[in-house]
């Protein structure tokens, strides 16, 4: 059972986006439900609109059409955290101070935030690197700091834009395992953008495939919460093959 059950999700209805000066829509007719506690992966080839959709969900851009609502308790403003593709840490701050940043923005003092920061650092295996500076860390470590920073406020909604795309396979597997464990412990609503079929199947509760700015298909992934040995299981290989075939089919249709 998760330690915390969050009550916020996202509902998008009829969402479209056309950037200024462009003649075609980047996104059209997007209807998407991200229920509280779901792990939704946006999968698709480059340029299909995954990152644009994530930016709309993060409210960094406004949709040209349709609406996006955060669902949840009426009196509660949902807390949203973003993990960008690059770790984007403040290079002049230590690991501790980088993770503390979201709490500082909320006006929390360093002393009062110490426990929450250390909890987040421990959860991402960074407890021994609290005093290090970003330039002293490997790519994988930096991404861990970025995730620790996102988790420090125990967010209702976690938005991740291809966070492991630049990492080697071994580090990526390890971070996928860690992310999955963190998700099970805290159960925020997660929207995760990726190119990787393997990553999408391993992490998600639902895969949403995008093609040419539209949702092409959605697939629930029901492997349950414990996925420690999932990569060795036959049903995992079967779902991976199915997702790959679906994507190949989409590309074949287009070509």
């Amino acid at each position, binding site marked *: 059972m998760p330690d915390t059950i969050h009550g916020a999700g996202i509902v998008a209805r009829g969402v479209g986006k056309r950037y200024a000066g462009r003649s075609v829509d980047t996104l059209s007719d997007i209807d998407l439900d991200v229920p509280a506690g779901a792990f939704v992966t946006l999968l698709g080839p480059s340029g299909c609109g995954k990152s644009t959709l994530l930016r709309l969900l*993060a409210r960094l851009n406004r949709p040209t059409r349709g609406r996006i609502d955060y669902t949840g308790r009426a009196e509660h403003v949902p807390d949203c*955290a973003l993990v*960008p593709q*690059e770790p*984007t840490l*403040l*290079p*002049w701050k230590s690991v501790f101070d980088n993770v503390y*940043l979201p709490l*500082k923005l909320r006006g929390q003092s360093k002393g009062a935030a110490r426990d929450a920061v250390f909890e987040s650092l421990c959860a991402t295996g960074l407890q021994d690197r609290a005093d290090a500076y970003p330039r002293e860390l490997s790519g994988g470590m930096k991404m861990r700091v970025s995730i620790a920073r996102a988790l420090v406020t125990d967010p209702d909604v976690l938005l991740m834009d291809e966070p492991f795309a630049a990492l080697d396979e071994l580090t990526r597997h390890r971070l996928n395992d860690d992310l999955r464990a963190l998700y099970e412990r805290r159960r925020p609503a997660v929207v995760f953008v990726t190119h990787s079929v393997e990553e999408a199947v391993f992490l998600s509760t639902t895969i949403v495939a995008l093609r040419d700015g539209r949702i092409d298909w959605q697939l629930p992934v029901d492997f349950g919460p414990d996925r420690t040995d999932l990569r060795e299981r036959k049903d995992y290989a079967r779902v991976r093959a199915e997702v790959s075939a679906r994507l190949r089919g989409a590309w074949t249709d287009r070509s």
Partner: protein
Amino acid sequence: MSDWSYLLARPPLWLRTALPTAFFAILLAIWEAVVRLGHVSPLILPTPSAVASDLWLHAGTLLWSTWNTFVVTVEAFAIGSVAGIVLAILFSRSRLLDLSVSPLMVLTQVTPTVAIAPLVLVWVGVDNVNAAILILAAIIAFFPVTANTMMGLKSVSHDLHDLFTVRRASSWQRLVLLELPAAMPYTLSGMKLAGGLALVGAVVAEFVAGSGTDAGLAWRISEAANRLNTPRMFASLFLLGLLGVGISGLLSLVQYLCLRRWHEAAIVRDR
């Protein structure tokens, strides 16, 4: 790579001190010999020993003037730096202000100090020469701080801006926690330039506006030139050079201390 090339690629402090000192000593020895052997008149080019003697005999007056020039330089540098950073923040916040005021700012830089000195002197009053010198020096000093800080404020990563937006940071938090620290390497480079320019401004302004109650080094040089006292001129120039090197060294140290933990410019990579 040979040992010597390796040493030159990453010179230790002793080498960085020894090389210019040795070069300067050799230069002085040649200079002394050339004048003593009668190749150049001592009236045109005094011997280094004559300059040293003048410096020793009039140390009190010359050091007092050095102090006065130093104080004006520091004041002009401080005013220029604060004004430069504040202007850069205002310009980065308001495109309208940037477009309206920037051309005027450039005008203050392309107009020589000597040309505006008489006007500033009229404005502050001829009995307020010290204020005129300070204003002129500050006018020269602020521009590199503004230009560099603006560039730094504009160079903040879009992803970091997004992060602050998603976390609903206020405008003030964004400025203090993100933009100003990110712009710091640029601002410090601008301040390093401003330090040298403030000194140049202080000297040029004193030449043009004259000296107030506290005579600076420019006044000493001017006075010595009128009396054809070339050893005194050289002694004053030597102190001026020393002051410039000291200010530049101090600002380099501040830059290093501020950036050493995180900025590429201050980090020496292992080989």
